């Protein structure tokens, strides 16, 4: 026990005086989480409430123009502008402004579109009841180009963004067509039958939809935003960068000759390594607490949403401990296998970056291709990130994360075992 405590104290003092090591462990992840959360805040809003600037030209100034504008506003995705530099926008001005990137999209409702809709609806209804087969033909004439609602997009616009605009316009136009036709049918029947109750078709909703909870524990307030992604993601990344000071300390001990001295001494050598593992596991836990504090306080102060962490503190503790042990295991393995600092830094850094990329640290796994998403399941960073997402986003408990935590512990155990076997092999040869 004395050897173990002495090793922890020594490691603590060495780390405390290693400024670059402390920077890698605490400053770098904090900077990463702040910068990445701020940078990715915009892209993440693609999936949530966001207000992209849109130029809206209403030449119709009637029902169609009003309904389209209302539906765009109700989508809460666009900030509608009708003027450019204080001047009411025209189609030409709008297209130019969008092509210059001043607006993400433009929509133009042509003049007289409402009148065109009403007139054609009347004609169609009249044809339906005219009694002449050729007049009642199901063929509906295609509107001329001048009567189309036009939209144009910034070339940088994503596919999902374009689909959203198409959906809003289609929804607006189809509801207007059906309502106008219904009203005209209504009027037609009024000529023959007395109508006792006039129905307001505008507010008529025969069938509808409703969002319900996916599970009893689901918290509708939790939204997957850049903070919810970046804080746990970069926490995992930072934890695995523990390898750098940890493996560095193992290689330095070999270089200094202290390992040799310690091997001559009566204390168990594995106890001394256990001291390193213990200290760096605690460092991993401190990193998590620091990142948690950043997510709860620092990021909201910078205008980002606060991190929501769920309610299962036991599950969080289990995940943090397992992830920390996996990271220290990785560090011990790298430090044992590589004989020079340069080899260790190069291999270790690239490995962590690859594991991070596969593990969904840089981009969420659901954006990845199917093949990459399958491969990502083998990254320890993914196990940790997945467990954090389960707890934070899905209000998961220990039941939901135990498998990922076990995988992390298995990874740690394998790393320690391989390190031990390699150390033994090197001693013999």
């Amino acid at each position: 026990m004395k050897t173990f405590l002495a090793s922890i104290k020594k490691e603590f003092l060495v780390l405390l005086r290693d400024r670059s090591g402390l920077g890698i462990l605490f400053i770098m992840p904090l900077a990463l989480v702040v910068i990445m959360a701020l940078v990715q805040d915009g892209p993440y809003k693609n999936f949530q409430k966001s207000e992209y600037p849109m130029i809206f030209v209403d030449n119709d100034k009637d029902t169609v123009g009003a309904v389209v504008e209302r539906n765009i506003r109700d989508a809460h995705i666009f900030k509608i502008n009708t003027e450019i530099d204080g001047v009411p926008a025209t189609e030409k001005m709008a297209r130019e402004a969008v092509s210059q990137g001043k607006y993400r999209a433009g929509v133009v409702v042509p003049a007289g579109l409402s009148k065109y809709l009403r007139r054609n609806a009347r004609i169609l209804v009249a044809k339906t009841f005219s009694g002449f087969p050729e007049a009642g033909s199901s063929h509906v004439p295609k509107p001329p180009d001048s009567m189309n609602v036009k939209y144009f997009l910034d070339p940088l616009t994503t596919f999902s963004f374009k689909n959203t605009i198409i959906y809003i316009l289609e929804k607006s136009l189809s509801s207007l067509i059906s309502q106008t036709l219904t009203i005209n049918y209504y009027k037609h029947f009024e000529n023959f039958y007395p109508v006792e109750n006039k129905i307001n078709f505008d507010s008529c909703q025969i069938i509808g939809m409703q969002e319900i909870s996916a599970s009893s524990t689901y918290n509708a307030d939790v939204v997957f935003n850049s903070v919810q992604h970046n804080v746990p993601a970069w926490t995992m990344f930072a934890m695995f960068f523990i390898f750098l000071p940890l493996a560095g300390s193992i290689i330095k001990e070999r270089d200094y000759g202290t390992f040799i001295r310690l091997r001559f001494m009566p204390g168990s050598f594995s106890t001394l390594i256990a001291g390193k593992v213990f200290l760096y596991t605690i460092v991993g836990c401190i990193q998590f607490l620091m990142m948690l504090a950043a997510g709860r306080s620092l990021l909201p102060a910078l205008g980002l949403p606060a991190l929501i962490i769920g309610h299962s503190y036991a599950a969080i503790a289990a995940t943090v401990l397992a992830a920390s042990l996996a990271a220290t295991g990785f560090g011990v393995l790298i430090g044992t296998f590589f004989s020079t600092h340069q080899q260790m830094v190069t291999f270790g850094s690239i490995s962590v970056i690859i594991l991070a990329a596969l593990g969904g640290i840089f981009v969420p796994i659901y954006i990845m291709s199917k093949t990459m998403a399958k491969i990502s399941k083998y990254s320890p960073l993914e196990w940790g990130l997945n467990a954090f997402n389960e707890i934070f986003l899905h209000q998961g408990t220990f039941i939901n994360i135990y498998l990922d935590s076990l995988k992390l512990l298995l990874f740690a155990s394998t790393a320690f075992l391989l390190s031990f076997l390699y150390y033994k092999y090197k001693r013999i040869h």
Partner: protein
Amino acid sequence: MEKEIIIQVDKLSKYYKGNSYPAVDDVSFAINRNEIFGLLGPNGAGKTTLLSVMCGLFKPDSGHVLINGSILHQHLKSLKKIIGIVPQDIALYPTLTARENLIFFGNVYGLSRKFLDDKIDQCLAILELEKSKNKRINTFSGGMKRRINIAAGLLHEPEILFLDEPTVGIDIHSKKVIIDYLKDINKKGTTILYTSHLIAEAEDFCSYIAIMDQGKIKTGGKPADLIRSYEKTQNLEDVFLQLTEKSLP
């Protein structure tokens, strides 16, 4: 009065992987209790390898080492407690202070707090490092580092002290302090095995000298006896050159 043997090396050989020739080749000798045994030889003679096997760092490929009558590799754990090591490298933590280094190594030896504090103060005083005890090792001169390196191997008052080139590359003052200290602890009962290629220092310091080359012990005896037993030799350096046919550094 017959002298008591504390270390017995018996037909010891050690090969390194990939080498067809042994680093230590069928070596046998004995070290008496309270002796200062000098193991001299040119670079690559096998001194450090032999020392490493005698300390238990490597297992021999053949032969064995007996310490106090017990086979070293069978009683390694208990025998390590009576052995002190001073490696050739400055095996210290450069960002820790002298005192922090000594506390750490003392704790690994399992020493009590009181004993360790007293021992550290005593070592630092004798090695003239009291004023620097709270300074970091990376601010020390080469000689100061060597002195702390020795202190770290002596904290637990070992019966046997292995020293691998303890005075290499240091100033005269530090060298004198170290040699005086080692003579002092030898007087108090510590047996010393010392490797060096500094012949003049060994001639003055050691009570018994063995000259090693190409993995073998070429000769051994008291320094004066060795000089007398070879023709045309005035000092140990002449003996060394005759036996190893190599110039000294």
